């Protein structure tokens, strides 16, 4: 399958990764090669096969719906690139 530069740009946008326009043809070509490789899967007869949900059949454990953690604002913010007054700070989102 051939990916055009428009599709490559759309995927980059969805992935929130800035790609400069002059790099898009190369990226589109790489995607095309990888997708060509993946398309071998079209040869497989998957009629009636269930998609795998969990590699190990297991029922997930449940626990009481209670607070088990918290009260560590300073630790949560310790690695933030920008934290102010106990919050993560980001550029203006609302005009």
């Amino acid at each position, binding site marked *: 399958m051939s990916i055009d530069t428009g599709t490559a740009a759309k995927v980059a946008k969805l*992935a*929130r*990764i800035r790609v400069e326009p002059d790099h898009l043809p190369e990226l589109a070509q790489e995607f095309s090669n990888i997708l060509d490789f993946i398309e071998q*899967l079209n040869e497989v007869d998957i009629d009636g096969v269930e*998609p795998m949900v969990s590699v190990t059949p297991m029922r997930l454990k449940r626990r009481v719906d209670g607070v088990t953690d918290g009260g560590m604002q300073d630790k949560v913010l310790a690695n933030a690139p920008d934290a102010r007054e106990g919050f993560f700070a980001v550029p203006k989102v609302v005009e």
Partner: protein
Amino acid sequence: MTDLTRMKVAQARDALRAGEVTSVALTEACLTAIEGADALGAFVHKTPEIALEQARAADARIQEGDAPSMCGIPMGIKDLFCTKGVPSQAASGILKGFKPEYESTVTSQLFDAGAVMLGKLNMDEFAMGSSNETSVYGNAVNPWRRGNDDAALTPGGSSGGSASAVAADLCLAATGTDTGGSIRQPAAFTGITGIKPTYGRCSRWGIIAFASSLDQAGPMTKDVRDAAIVLGAMCGHDPRDSTSVDLPVPDFESMLTGDIRGKAIGIPREYRMDGMPAEIDALWDQGRDMLRDAGARIVDISLPHTKYALPTYYVIAPAEASSNLARYDGVRYGHRATLASGEGINDMYEKTRAEGFGPEVQRRVMVGTYVLSAGFYDAYYNRARKVRTLIKRDFEQAFATGVDAILTPATPSAAFGLGELQDADPVQMYLNDVFTVTVNLAGLPGISVPAGLDKQGLPLGLQLIGRPWEEGDLLNTAYALETAAGFVEKPTKWW
């Protein structure tokens, strides 16, 4: 003092308990070896203060007679593990400066057992790679060379730093992680042992996520006995990982009898690939003969969907990665791009991720985004999940016929030169995992054991694949193979 670094875990444990050596002496010897080995690029964050403090505490414990097997053993920790207060950045620029406020379950368990952390080990960025060339820290280098040729070779990946460090005797053992072969391929490239346990054996809590349904931690060691000891300390149930299994952890070491009489070893015909080097084929045949001579029964088996494992992996792993790596947005930790005036929050996300992620990570995140996007989800992602079911079923059917373990080559080649695949199509690099990736897709335990040298003097490994949760039996088969192969070669020191 350099002799101390050549010790194995079992040997060091016995010497520590007998009072013949101290953990401080062992640790100092390793720290000296690490200082002299920067050319290997293995240790990327050194933690000598933590190491010596842990070593002193371990010596005190041993004196009091309270010494689990790992007590006082100096180890290296892959950079993918969150270690409290110590940089943990998955070899990525996007986590530069990140110092976790918490400790991963696996490293907590190791430290509770008395293990000593010498530092953090190099790897491919976010564990995406097979040569350790995608690391923000630069390459890790294989201590092995081709004869007298001084060309630098890859130690494999993604756990390349772990492999290099263990093979070069910079530490007694190391942690690794394996999503498609990232423990077993580097172990094979460096002449050491590496086991990926059954999915769910080791807690994934605090291990930076790549593809959550495939990721498993495991030990990288100098032999099978050490793998049994370190694995025992790493695994166990953890309520903080919902996929962690609540099963007792057996004493793996005590299961190493070397007796494999009557065991059935499957040889999958689909693993005989076109263009595979004759030496790998010959080694595989030798491995089969060794296990037969040890009393095992050799059975030809078929795993018909093998050829679809890599394309399945390259849908599922990027899909999960695109979701897992969405958290790196420049808000809560790690790198944030500098914004020009007038740029908003979307510019921040896009610039941060373009600057912080390397090319391979960007490529996989975008491929994952594509296969999960509207209109392609069924054609790619759901189809891959169905083929994954078939790949797992192949193994189940083989085991149902009474096969105890499956023998395959570990890798399709010996270690290759750093930079050799630089200009190749990414798919060429992906082929490195052709023999290992099926095991992750099926959630099974797999171990790579060094079994011989090629004509250029580079180590080659064989892989054994076991039944789910039967790591003890698998380790015992690996122990029999190791004993028969008698691999004792070491790289000649050049660094």
